[in-house]
């Protein structure tokens, strides 16, 4: 699955995107976030406050409990500050 990061998440992890083969036990957005958090200290730093992280599946906003389903792209990012 393609995983993409934006803003300070991208900076902390040190890359804009990557391919991650999530294990079958990873079923939801929150599961994916937990899996990534354990990948290394840069990930732990990026996801240190999981409650403020927003996510999108195939470019649509989703909640932590949303199932990954057949989505091809998951994005993690901080609260948005457009406009």
């Amino acid at each position, binding site marked *: 699955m393609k995983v*993409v990061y*934006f*803003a*300070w998440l991208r900076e902390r992890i040190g890359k804009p995107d990557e391919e991650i083969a999530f294990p079958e036990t990873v079923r939801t957005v929150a599961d994916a976030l937990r899996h990534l958090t354990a990948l290394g200290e840069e990930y732990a730093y990026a996801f240190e406050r999981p409650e403020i992280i927003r996510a*999108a599946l195939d*470019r*649509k*906003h989703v909640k932590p409990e949303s199932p990954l389903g057949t989505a091809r792209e998951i*994005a993690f*990012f*901080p*609260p*948005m*500050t*457009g*406009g």
Partner: protein
Amino acid sequence: MAATTIRIQSEDFDLSAEIGRLTCGRKDIGGVVSFVGYCRDEGGSLAALELEHYPGMAEEEIARICDEAGKRWPVLGLTVVHRFGKIRPGEQIVLVIAASSHRRAAFEAAEFVMDFLKSRAPFWKKEHGISGRSGDWVSARDEDEQALVRWN
């Protein structure tokens, strides 16, 4: 059905040209409301804002917001232009134009789109200070999130 134009671009935009494009050849429009957001200098401390966006999702999310506005008000046209990249104080960042037969729908639709754009469209601002130091990411404001509640 509203004619909707959405563009995400690094270049500046021209308000009157965009209004002209939206109203050209139409005789059913009775009012146009526009909002332009500018980059502030934050009391002289800001050299530039750097806007990052999620290509693809930014356009799609703004389209979803415009669709919702079209369901709530009889809008005849909506235009949203949002810039990305480095923007200096005094420069324009975002444009929302709403057209309708009557003013109230145009005022409310423009405000609705702007409110949702701030908290739902995937853009992030980073501040660059005049000291030359690469600054901090702008934090989301609680007021922006609360602004959505009144549209429920």
